[in-house]
């Protein structure tokens, strides 16, 4: 019998498996894709501190380093944030095809068993343990485990199998398309973000530099978008980068519903996108997935030691992720609800009113400045930011 079966070898699942295995647990990590990390569903940005908390940065999985972020209002007004102040997604641009495999390798080196092209498709709880049904290339079999960790991404079905309803509504996700583009002109020292209802309703367009070319992508909120994200992105690209070449296409979805009530059930913990851990403002989810994986791993170790896999015991995991970033998710969801209502003219006004001579441009400093000039605009959201 396994101590832990981890479903999904994204960053969340691999860090969970690694943490469990390092602490002596008997771990199985299953991934339904035949190649870990492919197809990519990510713009690949992560801040240096968020990455370095869990893995030593290696040249072979870092595609590019940037020094900050440039954010553009609909009329083109630009603000620049330094790397430390730009949030969890700016600093390194990863090569996730390599990064995700590297994390799985760390889990495997620590002693976890890894199976690819293997789907966990059903779960049966009985006598305090779980029988997990697995399928690989048409062959089906069962394994037993004390704990299941659902790290199965935005398309999670593990949650539902254990009675947690994480179904998203059209105003709780970003529908995304991204091109890897070459033959385009941009400042490669920055990640770039374009805001505005007309450009990307309920989301934004990004450009993240890579070693060759850049990830140019869009997320829109389906409840607000009149067309598919691909159509909005194609308009932007043909206007801005008419000579650009598209050498890769990525589609994806990011959960932006904010903090869920609980990510545990008897014998189960949910990690990363499966637990809707992505940031409701930026859509970044790698950092939180790794943090959650680490906490879930730690709690699994304690649970096995005590022989207690009940929801009640596993609630310790809820406490850990909520204390770390749960409140931030809740606050950002509220802020997102306000931001998506702003029209383009208001955004322009806000961007234009940010004095060019602010020395330390941080989100907080910007908000304070705007607040001085347009108290009415921000009265609504001041509690959320300050």
């Amino acid at each position, binding site marked *: 019998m396994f101590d832990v079966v981890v479903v999904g070898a994204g960053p969340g699942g691999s860090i969970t498996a690694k943490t469990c295995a390092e602490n002596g647990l008997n771990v199985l990590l299953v991934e339904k894709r035949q190649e870990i990390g492919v197809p990519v569903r990510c713009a690949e940005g992560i801040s240096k501190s968020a990455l370095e908390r869990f893995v030593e940065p290696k040249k072979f999985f870092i595609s590019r380093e940037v020094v900050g972020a440039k954010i553009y209002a609909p009329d083109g007004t630009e603000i620049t944030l330094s790397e430390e102040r730009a949030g969890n997604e700016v600093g390194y641009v990863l090569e996730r095809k390599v990064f995700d495999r590297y994390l799985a390798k760390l889990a495997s080196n620590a002693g976890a068993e890894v199976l690819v092209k293997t789907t966990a498709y059903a779960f049966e709880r009985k006598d305090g343990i779980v029988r997990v049904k697995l399928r690989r290339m048409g062959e089906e079999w069962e394994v037993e485990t004390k704990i299941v960790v659902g790290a199965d991404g*935005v398309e999670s079905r593990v949650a*539902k199998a254990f009675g947690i309803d994480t179904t998203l509504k059209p105003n709780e*996700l970003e529908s995304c398309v991204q091109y890897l583009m070459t033959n385009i002109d941009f400042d490669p020292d920055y990640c770039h973000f374009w805001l505005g209802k007309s450009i990307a309703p309920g989301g934004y367009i990004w450009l993240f530099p890579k070693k060759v070319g850049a990830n140019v992508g869009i997320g829109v909120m389906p409840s607000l978008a009149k067309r*598919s994200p691909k159509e909005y992105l194609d308009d932007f690209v043909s206007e801005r980068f008419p000579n650009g070449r598209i050498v890769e296409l990525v*589609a*994806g*979805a990011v959960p932006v519903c904010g903090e869920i009530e609980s990510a545990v059930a008897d014998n189960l913990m949910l990690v990363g996108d499966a637990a809707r851990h992505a940031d409701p403002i930026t859509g970044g989810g790698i950092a939180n997935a790794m943090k959650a994986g680490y906490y879930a791993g730690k709690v699994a170790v304690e649970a096995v030691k005590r022989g207690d896999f009940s929801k009640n015991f596993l609630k310790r995991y809820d406490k850990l992720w909520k204390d770390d970033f749960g409140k931030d998710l809740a606050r950002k969801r509220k802020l997102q609800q306000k931001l998506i209502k702003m029209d383009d003219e208001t955004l322009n006004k806000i961007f234009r009113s940010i004095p060019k001579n602010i020395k330390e441009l941080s989100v907080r400093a910007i908000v304070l400045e705007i607040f001085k000039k347009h108290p009415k605009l921000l009265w609504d959201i001041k509690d959320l930011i300050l």
Partner: protein
Amino acid sequence: MPRKVAVVNRYRCAYCGACVSVCKFNANELIETFLQIYEDRCNGCGMCVKVCPMNALEVIECST
């Protein structure tokens, strides 16, 4: 009686999972490398169509 179900255009689908994340009825799943719709569970609500980034889904009337 005709009923409504979602169908996927496999040539457009980019295997992203957006549709699965919004289906209340467990009527779709990303299998190893393709999207499967379980017609017996699908009620044609169209939620998945709305969120698909690739315009790969539509709801059709099906006679069986």
